[in-house]
């Protein structure tokens, strides 16, 4: 197993994420050869190249039906599978809130 860099957050203890974390890990497994741990920072480990970094954004948009806006472009949202799951949940919550207004 490669040296995974872990975030301080404990992913297993987080709220249920509708399987987003594992879907992201499956997608990354196709590109990287094995699935990164839920908290592995695949940018810091250098496993994601710049071409795939853009593709990952397009995947998140296409798969989870949202638009990544310029202001969403923060590495903290995309550096781990759990971070992406949190980002997706936050975007969905914002969309739901906007829909209720």
């Amino acid at each position, binding site marked *: *197993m490669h040296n*995974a860099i*872990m975030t301080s957050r404990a*992913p*297993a203890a987080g709220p249920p994420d509708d399987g987003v*974390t*594992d879907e992201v*890990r*499956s997608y990354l*497994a*196709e*590109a990287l*050869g*094995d*699935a990164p*741990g*839920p*908290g592995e920072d695949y940018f810091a480990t250098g496993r994601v*190249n*710049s*071409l*795939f*970094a*853009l*593709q*990952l*954004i*397009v*995947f998140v*948009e*296409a798969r989870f039906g949202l638009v990544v806006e*310029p202001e969403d*472009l*923060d*590495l903290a949202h995309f550096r781990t599978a759990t971070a992406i799951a949190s980002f997706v949940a936050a975007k969905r919550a914002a969309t739901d809130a906007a829909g209720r207004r």
Partner: protein
Amino acid sequence: MTGRPADAAVFLEAVRAGATGWDGARQLPAELIREAGRAGLLAADLPHHYGGAGASASDVGELSARTGGVCSSLRALVTVQGMVAAAVLRWGTAGQRETWLPRFASGEAVAAFAATEPDAGSELAAVRTRIEPAGSQLRVTGRKVWVSFGEIADVVLVLGRLDGAPAAVLVETGRPGLRRRPVRDQLGLRAAHIAHLDLDAVPVPRGNLVAAPGFGLSHVAGTALDHGRYTVAWGCVGLAAACHRLATGHALARVQGGVRLSDHQLVRALLARSFVDLTAAEQLCRRAAALRTAGDPEFLAATVTAKYAAARTADSVSRDAVRIHGSAGCDAGSVVGRFLRDAAVMQIIEGAPEVNEMHIADHVIREHRRTAGGHPGHVPVPSGAVP
């Protein structure tokens, strides 16, 4: 408001006869750029709100092909306006979008994209241009080379580093400290106003940064280059189609020693091979268009694949067209000769073939892992437990 695709086709046929002269003069006529904007050729895929035509990927492809069949330098203008417009639309601030996009679509502002440096070509992660905070501003210092339309651009999207992180910044060309050195007599794209740019502590507002530092290469330049590959790919198809049409016409018209060129088996074989390669490249471009329209993440790889095939086809078909034309193809002012020189450059820009192959191989391996389930190369995903 920009024009409809029909306007663009009429415009392109009207200016076709001028292209050889532009190549010879090493420049596009000044009024041509605004006319191209009025005809709807520039950044046509921008939403109407920003002065675009809301054109589909497929429409942009057709426009690029039509332009590529007339003049590669004009197609380079379509490419660079489209590249910078795509990056600003996708990752720019609301202010940047309102300021620049309508001007890109109209041709009122010419855009350029400055990534390549003397020591950073295919490997753009090696760029050394510095973007440094200076009070409320930024200062940009570095050397950029082979910038299409760098000689006349109003604004340049510059890739550099800010605090070590890749960053992209819009630099208006009227700012102090920016020097342009026009490139002359290069192999191809001779009317594309290519220049080297020297930036010496050029001051720009912080608000000119496009996306946060860290995303300048992967996302901002990545979006621009993807769009560029797409229009270059289609432009190459248009170039190859124009060469094939000229070669076929010449072969049918030219009689040597009582035999029509088109009756020689070797000539017929060349025409057949060119037709197959051209059709294959066009279909790869159509596939890229469909994936882009669908928002399928593999559109990035599909676009690299299309560019790779189309650039190679432009090179081979234009080369065969020159051979079929014989000495006429080698003459000064030869249209197929100009297309051959342009095609050589188009192999290299927006990713040389060898770089394309690495990206395409990444795609091949991903697809294999995705579909190989249970076979060698399949990657099981362990449960979410932290290893």
